[in-house]
């Protein structure tokens, strides 16, 4: 099923109403997005690795002008820096990898 622009807006609005979305702010623009936070083990080899978190937020494509690597972004009230922007699914949304500044 293709999720068109109007579908995504409606879905994110429904999620926000149910408490499932987060506010994503870049510059003067605030939109709704979906935050994923996954624990990962990194730099493990001979010794146990570090438990870190991979944080990604999904937003509709094109709604945040200036969304690019290195941009300052606020997700759910927390300040991040955009690590990278990746296409997601059929291209109607993007996956934004985050890092703490």
């Amino acid at each position, binding site marked *: 099923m293709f999720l068109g622009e109007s579908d995504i807006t409606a879905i994110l609005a429904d999620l926000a109403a149910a408490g499932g979305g987060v506010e994503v702010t870049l510059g003067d623009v605030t939109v709704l997005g979906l935050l994923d936070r996954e624990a*990962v*083990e990194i730099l493990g080899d001979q*010794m146990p690795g570090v438990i*870190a978190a*991979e944080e990604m937020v999904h937003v509709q494509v094109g709604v945040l002008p200036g969304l690019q690597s290195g941009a300052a972004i606020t997700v759910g009230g927390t300040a991040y820096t955009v690590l990278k922007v990746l296409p997601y699914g059929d291209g109607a949304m993007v996956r934004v990898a*985050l*890092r703490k500044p």
Partner: protein
Amino acid sequence: MSTIREQIVAAAVLALATDAPVGIPTPVRTRLDSPSADQLPALTVYQGAETVETMRDAKTGTASRGPIVRRSVLLSVEVLTRAGTSEEPDKAADPILAWATSALAAAGAFGGLANGPADEIGTKFEYEQSETSFCRATQTFRIEYQTRTGDAESLT
């Protein structure tokens, strides 16, 4: 009783912990669990490989290769760091690595357990990115010592 090798590793950990400057993490002898990002920096000491060399080749008619074997153990000193505000993770590791170099040099022959000071072989830097940038810097030291043949717990 423990092997001379184990005593050397313990002495190295003690050397890294003694009079360490502010900001140097407490060394751990072989980490058993995974630190979280907010527990960094972390300093871990563990042994890698050991080689053993006899004093002479066995001669015809005798099984003896001499009463002493020369041993060389590779000691790993691992530093885990994360990026800080305006500080790259490998830069954050730098003072800890410098401390390890100086502390092990100052330990000399580990109270007579080794033949001499630890030789620093090199440092490997590895990086990974998730919520921030992380670095693992692993220094390798070679420590030479000797024990009785067939008895790793006894010095000559």
